[in-house]
């Protein structure tokens, strides 16, 4: 009885291990099929990773250079980070250092609601509010679909992650450190900016990394609001296509199954998986190696 239960628990634990192995196996085998497809000798991992034109569905000869999709993703993620990191960190500082217990509970509820909102809702918000009412009045260059609107919406989506994880790590800084700094004649600003934030920095950076990873993998917002044109641009008023948005386009049935376009989505997925896996790994290392331990 005891032994069989332990064995059963072990078996269920292996589900998560098998999931990782299966994800990697599927992505690798399908990507290999993409790179070795007959009739397309021009496609190689090198041309895929360094090519600057992505036009799988248009033109006589499809081109598969993933860089426009990568820069599209990076542009949206950068905008999201610029929105979420300062606001999230300042809100976390306010929650942990300034707010009364009552205000704190109240604000935590607001953040929990924001965290629970499905991402497709943020996409809708970008399309029907951020772009027409905030961006288009500012400049006429913003189209219906643009990187800025999508980026801001992704930023709002990751704000609760930045905020609650940073706050956890700021609150974990022992009160004695603050008291010591006050005793030396510090103002609250000195205590916060020079003692508390540096002491909780590993947690804050891990929070940033986790939030940016979510932003890179975010799908529904960019599929709705960023547009569908893969282009190499840093102009946020233009439409861009991200890696995830391309996958949505393919799986929604724009391409015949088992064609070269269909297979290309697996190579894109592999790229996306590699990037996010590296980032979560880095986050875990940062948290482990640079954590300041206090009694």
């Amino acid at each position, binding site marked *: 009885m005891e032994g069989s239960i332990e064995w059963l628990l072990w078996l269920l634990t292996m589900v998560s291990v098998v999931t990782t192995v299966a994800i990697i196996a599927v992505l690798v085998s399908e990507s290999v099929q993409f790179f070795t497809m007959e009739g397309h000798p021009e496609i190689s991992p090198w041309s895929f990773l360094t090519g600057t034109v992505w036009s799988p569905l248009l033109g006589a000869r499809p081109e598969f250079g993933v860089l426009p999709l990568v820069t599209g993703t990076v542009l949206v993620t950068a905008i999201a980070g610029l929105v979420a990191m300062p606001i999230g960190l300042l809100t976390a500082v306010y929650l942990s250092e300034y707010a009364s217990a009552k205000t704190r509970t109240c604000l935590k509820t607001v953040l929990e609601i924001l965290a629970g909102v499905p991402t497709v809702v943020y996409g809708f918000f970008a399309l029907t509010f951020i772009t027409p009412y905030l961006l288009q009045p500012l400049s006429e260059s913003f189209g219906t679909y643009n990187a800025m609107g999508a980026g801001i919406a992704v930023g709002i989506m990751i704000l609760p992650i930045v905020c609650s994880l940073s706050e956890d790590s700021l609150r974990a800084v022992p009160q004695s450190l603050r008291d010591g700094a006050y005793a030396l004649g510090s103002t609250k600003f000195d205590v916060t900016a020079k003692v508390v934030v540096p002491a909780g920095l590993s947690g804050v950076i891990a929070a940033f990394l*986790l939030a940016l990873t979510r932003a890179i993998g975010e799908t529904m917002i960019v599929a709705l609001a960023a547009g569908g044109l893969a282009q190499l641009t840093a102009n946020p008023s233009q439409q861009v296509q991200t890696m995830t948005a391309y996958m949505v386009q393919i799986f929604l049935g724009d391409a015949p199954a088992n064609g070269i376009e269909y297979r290309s989505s697996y190579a894109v997925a592999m790229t996306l*998986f590699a990037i996010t896996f590296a980032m979560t790994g880095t986050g875990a290392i940062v948290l482990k190696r640079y954590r300041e331990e206090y009694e």
Partner: protein
Amino acid sequence: MTIGHTIPIARRLRHDRLMLAACLAATTLAIAVLSALLISIFVQGFSSLDWHFLSSFASRKAANAGILAPLMGSLWVCTICGMVAIPVGIATAIYLEEYARRSRLRSLIQLNISNLSGVPSIVYGILALAAFGRCFGAISSDDPWTLGSPDSVFFVQFPFGRSVLAGGLTLALVILPIMIIAAQEALRAVPVSLRQAALALGSTKWQVVWKVTLPSALPTMMTGAILSMSRAIGEAAPLLVIGGVLLLFSVPDNLMSDFTVLPLQIYNWAGRPQDDFHRIAAAAIIVQLVLLLGFNSVAIVIRQKLQRPLQS
């Protein structure tokens, strides 16, 4: 450490006030964003929300369209997802916290779980398409293996194709890492003294887990479970990969039925250019948010009612 003794006190106090102002501004902005989100959706969607909307199927005309199929689809998929992810998540947490020895293997599994929680949900969709949708190509969908009769709710055939069962299992994979981490934290919060007392009375390891640790950790675990489920009910991307967006005119009646879910229906309507469809998308979002609010309130009630403080 320099605390700025060379800076005049007036400037330090000004920094202090600026910091407070910046923090307040950021916090106000966060609240303003939430208000703008909720208000803009209510303004657009409230007028379309009525009984007809909840009880009708999709339609070519926005005025006649309803969300019966996606609403029932969401409930089916989430039920299946919860029935798989919650037990597997809790079992994994128990194994890692109570049974596994502190070895390299254990920390590798742990690292793997935290990495999995960062994998984009659309990638899970790709795995699910290969595993559940096609059984890795081992069984052709033209010649499926069947179990049970199509009249039964529990009718199953391999591969699962784009059925509710495939959808539920896909979401279960997505939320499993979150569920495991939540359950582990709940178990860690149970004081060691309780386990030691039970062991001292002669309990076996499993008796300790089943009769002592698990009951004390359950309220926290349930909160975690509900929060993971609220993530699942809002997921669209992985389901889009396995099934695409369907306009359905039936509700699921067995495990192999086709399905669509609320977020996918919202995506479909929001992506159309006409304002009429944006209005019904907003109405569907209101229904979705009410469902989520229901989930979260249950979590809060459980947290407050059942959580007895445990002395360590």
